[in-house]
């Protein structure tokens, strides 16, 4: 399985998925022209990763802005950890800037919706 390294652009976040370190990081703004298309490589890698049982993964999310279709993606993304878990130990860290109410509230919303996940909402 190969690592994933997608660079940040004006409208899309950076995605770094380090398989050896079991670390996935998404940082930046998410307003892709085609959200499903943009996150497809990530969803595919993740699905493959989760097929290996007894794995663990840390997901660090540092989003600063995301549009509605990215919100839909995030639901699907978190669903994957719940539904295709295969015994993987998952920790999700949602980081937000202290002054960013939007991202703080979004993090808390997701935390509430995914109470089965270890979902931390943290100040950067």
């Amino acid at each position: 399985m190969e690592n994933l390294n997608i660079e940040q652009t004006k409208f899309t976040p950076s995605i770094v998925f380090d398989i050896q370190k079991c670390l996935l990081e998404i940082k930046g703004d998410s307003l892709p022209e085609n959200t499903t298309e943009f996150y497809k490589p990530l969803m595919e890698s993740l699905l493959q990763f989760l097929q290996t049982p007894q794995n663990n993964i840390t997901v660090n999310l540092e989003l600063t802005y995301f549009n509605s279709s990215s919100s839909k993606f995030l639901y699907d993304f978190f669903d994957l950890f719940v539904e295709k878990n295969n015994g993987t130990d998952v920790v999700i860290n949602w980081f937000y800037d202290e002054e960013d109410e939007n991202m703080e509230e979004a993090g808390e919303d997701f935390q509430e919706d995914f109470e089965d996940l270890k979902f931390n909402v943290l100040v950067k």
Partner: protein
Amino acid sequence: MIDSELKLLQEIEDLKSQFNSTIDGLTKDLKRNYKTISRSDKTQRREFLKLLELNKELEDTQKEVIFTMGSIGESRSKETGNHVKRVAQYSKILALHYGLEEDEAEMLKQASPMHDIGKVAVPDSILNKPARFTPEEFKEMQKHAELGYDMLKHSERFLLKMAAIVAYEHHEKWDGTGYPRGLKEEEIHIYGRITALADVFDALGSDRVYKKAWSNEKIYQLFKEERGKHFDPKLVDIFFENLDQFLEVQKTFKD
């Protein structure tokens, strides 16, 4: 129960659980959609407010910079800051009655105070001479119109383009005897014609190093004489028809 009934019952149970799980899925999706929309509405509202704030900041900065530039031009020739304010107000009144849209009139109000910005490049000895100019000095003084235009003409900003026109043409006269280009009538841009009247009305009514302030009656007399000579006749008519508004400004922003 016979087998067929048991089978039917089983099928109904299966359908029921399928139905329930479909409903659960749909409910979950609907709730998520609702949350997404509510959150995005909230975000949009915040972003919108932020944009309004930034836009205001931008406009205020622009106004301040332009007003300051105008004041610099005036201060070089020992005129008071209120001259700039009054010329601005007179210009807007004239613009509105002439038929310009509110937006454009407001912009002219902001741009007209820059008419003398070219004076920053005219020597003090000429600017502040407490006596009549020699022909050479007058020529030097006249350069401020073109100098101002040269300073502002490169800008892409509408407001500064407007100010460039004002600087260039505010000493042109309706009958073609003004400077720097000797344009006449509607060859002179309306912004130039308006600022010319506003500037002269205020300059005559104020003390200067080389003269005392004129009385309003004396100014009215001159305006009647200069209707169609120095000034656009339509603007002179507007001036007399709305005299109360001009006098109100004169009172509000007196030195």
